């Protein structure tokens, strides 16, 4: 059988192929990825698109939980401070109820109680990054305004709505309690109790009952504060969970599209060898024919 006397095109095609393989192996090593475009592995590439979305969502949860934790901590420490102030008011009240104080001492206690009252209003109007945290969702308006016509001395102008923040797939955290629920709930109104205690000390009657009312309101407040403690714990454990999930997402990304460096390096060596061999073959092929020997 007569062979094709011109083998050069075949050799050039082989050379082109081995050079192409060299390029692909080099790209894989330098980019660290085996899937650099959709046609490299269409299924894996499509999954990488989904994976990237998962990573963004997961990171998003982590970041917003961080913000929420700031709000919750501020609220929690404010309530701690309020509880301390109420404890102080209770001591003062008990002292005033003992009946052993002079009129001027009684007056001094009144002044101190009024100071605590002002502090409580200020605490109830705490802000976090410019927004009131005990106003429900009316966070741009001061929730508790001083109102001398009101029995408790203040009026709540916030609302009772609660904000929720997504902290995971199908998982939402409630992030606030309305000030009305914390400080001016019916039967547990902190402001009313303090106001009544001040009046009782001033008139020196009914101090015992007023002190009890303050104590009841204080216990109620402590119970409400548990919401914030729980929310902080939930945020923390969700952060731990999401951090582990993030690791899995990253590992999956690597499994889908990461380069197998050892394999790519082997391929690179192999294809470079092929290139050299083909070049040597081409140079040998173009050398002799019969005309060279006819002299």
């Amino acid at each position, binding site marked *: 059988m007569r062979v*094709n006397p011109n083998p050069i095109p075949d050799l050039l095609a082989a050379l082109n192929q081995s050079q192409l393989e060299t390029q692909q192996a080099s790209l894989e090593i330098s980019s660290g990825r085996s899937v650099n475009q959709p046609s490299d592995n269409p299924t894996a590439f499509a999954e990488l698109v989904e994976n990237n979305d998962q990573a963004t969502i997961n990171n998003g949860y982590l970041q917003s939980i961080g913000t929420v934790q700031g709000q919750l901590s501020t609220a929690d420490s404010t309530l701690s401070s309020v509880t301390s102030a109420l404890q102080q008011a209770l001591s003062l009240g008990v002292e005033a109820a003992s009946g052993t104080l002079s009129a001027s001492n009684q007056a001094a206690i009144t002044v101190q109680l009024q100071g605590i009252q002002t502090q409580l209003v200020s605490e109830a109007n705490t802000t976090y990054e410019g927004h009131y945290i005990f106003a429900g969702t009316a966070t741009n308006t001061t929730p508790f305004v001083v109102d001398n016509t009101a029995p408790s001395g203040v009026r709540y102008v916030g609302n009772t709505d609660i*904000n929720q923040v997504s902290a995971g797939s199908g998982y939402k955290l409630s992030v606030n309690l309305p000030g009305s629920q914390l400080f001016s709930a019916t039967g547990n109104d902190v402001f009313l109790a303090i106001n009544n205690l001040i009046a009782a000390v001033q008139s020196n009657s009914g101090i015992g009952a007023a002190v009890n009312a303050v104590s009841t309101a204080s216990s109620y407040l402590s119970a409400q504060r548990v919401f914030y403690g729980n929310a902080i714990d939930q945020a923390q454990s969700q952060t731990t969970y999401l951090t582990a999930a993030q690791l899995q997402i990253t590992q999956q990304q690597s499994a889908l599209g990461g380069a197998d460096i050892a394999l790519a390096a082997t391929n690179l060596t192999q294809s470079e060898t092929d290139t050299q061999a083909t070049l040597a073959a081409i140079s040998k092929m173009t050398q002799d024919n019969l005309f060279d020997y006819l002299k």
Partner: protein
Amino acid sequence: MSGLFGTLSIALSSLSVSQEEMAITGNNVANANTPGYSRQVADTAAGDPIAIGSISAGTGVVLQKIESLRDPILEIQLNQATAQNSQLNTALGQLQQLQTQFGSSTSGIGADISDFFNTLQQLSPDPSNLQLRQSVLTAAGNLATDFNTAANNLQTQRGNLDLNVVQSVSAVNTLTSQIAGVDQQIESLKNAGDDPSTLVDTQTNLIRQLSALVNVSVVPTDQGISVTTGNGTTLVSGSQSFALTTESSAGAQHIFSGSHDITGTLTGGSLAAVIQTRDQEIPSLGNSLDQLAAGLANGLNSANTTGTDLNGAPGGNIFAPPPPGGVGAAAALQVSITDPALIAASSDGSSGSNGNLAALAAVATTPLANGQTPIASYSSLVFQIGNATSNTSADADSSNLILQQLQDQRGSVSGVSLDQEASNLIQYQTAYQAAARVVSAVDSLLADAVNLGIDAAQQ
């Protein structure tokens, strides 16, 4: 003829045939690298014998014809393989170009969608924060811009393909008129009884170039050859060629043979690939992008209207409403608000409520394009184009191998081997030298014969 003069004429026939054979060898060697050249061989035969009494004597050698070695079946196979190869490689080039639009899994439209919904998530704990609201608008703007860019790039590629159709048809017309011209020359040579071999090679070459543009079948007829496309449109009949025309119809160049629109009937060659990409791949991709853009815009607009903005007013549209049916939605996608206060995050009218952000965020998990959620729809789109490119690449690779094999076969039949030509040259040279010897010998014998009478007369 008998006698010495007979021998002389036999030797002369050998000399002239050897000369012609050496000329053929020279021609083969000269055309060793000519593309499409078919090597020629001398077809010699012994001259018709004459009868002298009861003896049948030879009359030397006759060159009957010069034969070009080519395999017609192989030529047909090569035409088909060339057409398919050209089609696949052209299609691959176009698909790879389309693919670059969607070449990263961590940036581009998909990542923009994820980033946009992330800005809503970050706004959620602090919904009246103007900076966070602005970042939502910025992310929406990036998304719109990337949709616009992708749609515009598709249009540009489509425009280039349109231009390509016109240019390819022009090239087809040039080739068909050249084929017809060569055919005329071949027919006149045949009628004069001459051998049209080299012209046939030229014509074969032209047909091969034509096959790269459009799939054709070639049939020899009484008037020459007939070249038709796959579905029977005649391009060349004998020495007459029929030009194709292009005409713009509904924003695309269509190909006409006379008054018939043959655009959709072309089956092979680069022209078929160009038309397929222009009329199928690109519109399909564009449609998917449009559905996704329209779905997102409509979904987010609708969710925004169920809430209240920072000024206490009911929410309006975030994006300009997409065109009806979504046609052109990707190119037209645009954020229509610049004031971050207009994002309707609130569900109860107060500025600190984030209740409506849940409705906006829910768009990410709503089936809104081809029955899929935004990211799933984008991921499908990317898979389609990647899969098409990958399959076409594999097909092109095997087509390249087939074409190479056929070319090797053609080379083994028609290719010039310098070794073979060199050995032929030695043969012909030796035969010439031997015949020249015969002439010398006869010459000297003739001299003796002429002098025979003189010697006898002198004695």
